[in-house]
């Protein structure tokens, strides 16, 4: 016990400068993030290299990298990776754009006019918490198993989110601004275009970000239930053949695309709504 205590103490003393140097480096937060990701990779490597879990359940990083190259070169079951990614993004994008094109105007109208709100809001509010997958099966019944039912599903997923946020955006307009514009003689239309719309835009973009993320989540689920291409289909099909390397590649690609979509909307938001947060 005693000897051990001393030796660790001595070790600690020897290690002190190194530790301090490390600590200083660790102080750099970005480095800490990189280290954290590296640590996960290292644990993954160690767990697989020492065969702590069966390789069927968790293939090692090296194996996954090799399959990734193979997937890039030869594709998966007669579909290329690009084809699958494009199919997923097309469905997601089409549903999302349609939802924005119709949901934003409706939301603005609901925020602006009590009549429109009374007529439409209860539908939007009922649809919003409804899990999209629950009505996917109906959409497949109605529209068939092709792309139409999936795009419709994503449309219905994104629509209530976008519409609600546009409505809330209109409400966030400061009354003083509208009054001062009116007292300066602005017409209703000009007030809407130059006061209400700019005030609502930050919230519309926040809603669009949430809607896109939800739509992206949903598209994978839809592909898993009924599709013959797309990243969700690839992952699900791989699970049937116990191709866990393909599953992990699929998960990583989906995660990266998800982060990229989020960043993209943020970027458009920053450049378009430069007045966000500036009061």
């Amino acid at each position, binding site marked *: 016990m005693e000897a051990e205590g001393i030796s660790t103490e001595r070790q600690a003393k020897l290690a002190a400068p190194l530790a301090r140097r490390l600590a200083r480096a660790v102080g750099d937060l970005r480095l800490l993030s990189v280290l954290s990701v590296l640590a996960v990779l290292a644990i993954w490597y160690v767990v697989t290299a020492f065969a702590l879990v069966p390789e069927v359940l968790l293939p090692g990083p090296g194996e996954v990298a090799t399959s990734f190259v193979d997937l890039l070169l030869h594709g998966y079951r007669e579909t290329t990776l690009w084809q699958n990614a494009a199919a997923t993004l097309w469905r997601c994008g089409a549903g999302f754009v349609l939802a924005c094109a119709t949901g934003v105007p409706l939301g603005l109208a609901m925020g602006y006019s009590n*009549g429109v709100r009374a007529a*439409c809001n209860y539908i939007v509010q009922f649809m919003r918490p409804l899990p999209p997958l629950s009505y996917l099966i109906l959409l497949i*019944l109605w529209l068939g198993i092709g792309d139409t039912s999936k795009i419709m599903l994503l449309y219905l997923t994104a629509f209530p989110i976008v519409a609600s946020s546009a409505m809330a955006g209109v409400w966030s307009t400061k009354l003083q601004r509208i009054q001062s514009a009116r007292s300066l003689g602005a017409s209703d239309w000009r007030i809407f275009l130059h006061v209400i719309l700019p005030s609502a835009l930050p919230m519309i973009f926040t809603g669009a970000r949430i809607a896109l993320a939800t739509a992206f*989540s949903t598209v994978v689920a839809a592909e898993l239930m009924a599709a013959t291409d797309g990243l969700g289909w690839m992952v699900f099909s791989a*699970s049937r053949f116990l191709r*866990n390397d393909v599953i*992990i590649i699929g998960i990583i690609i989906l*995660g990266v695309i998800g982060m990229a979509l989020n960043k993209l909307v943020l970027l458009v938001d920053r450049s378009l709504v430069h007045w966000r947060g500036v009061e």
Partner: protein
Amino acid sequence: MALEGTPLRPRVTAAITGASLLVLLLAWIAATSLGLVDDLFLPGPGLLWAGFLDLLENGYRNRSIWEHAGWSLERVLAGFLTGSLVGTLLGLGMGVNRKIEAIFSPLVEFFRPLPQLAYLVLLIVWFGIGETAQIVLLFLTALPVSAIAAMDGVRNVSVQRIQAARSLGATEWQIFRYVVFPSALHEIFTGARLAIGVVYATLIAAEIISGSTGIGWMILDAGRFLRSDYVFVGILFIGIVGLGLDRLLLLVEHRVVHWSGKD
């Protein structure tokens, strides 16, 4: 707030909502009774009601509808409670300490936009088809949402309050316990409501792999057999229970965080 010149009276608003609802109902009745759409695709009100009574009386596939609902609720609660508890603790840590944030934020940021279904497949391989995989899926769904909400909550605590407490001689723990945590609680609850929404939406996906239990499974299974009346009843049921869960959390929030919005 009404941006129009004169706000509508509540009675007028209700009348418009009622009229809109009536138009929808009439369109539904007309479409189904005139045979414009097949009963298979869109059951009429009569058929739907019959299907509802049938479900209440006989259940679905040897289990009463309440049993299915019980299974679903159990999964939602198990995943939500564990996920949001761990997520909130992690988020509080990330909010208080920049280093903890730096360590965990890449993982949380990666997990949050990741479609849940993608890792469901991996969970099935690891845990087999059954309760564990489903609950782990819901746990992983709730975790990043709660973590980010709790972190934002801590970040948004006003600096003056912390400085005031510190100048009065409060220890770091006291500041956390009496200033930071109560201030962040409102956002933690908002995060919890978001999380339960996402968990609830993911439940249907999780129940793809449940053997023969749960409302989500019932909807999927009924769809396979073209029983669209059961599908509709299931959707309505899920919608109403989801709304109820959200209201319940809101109620708890008002009880617990009675100081919210009084800044």
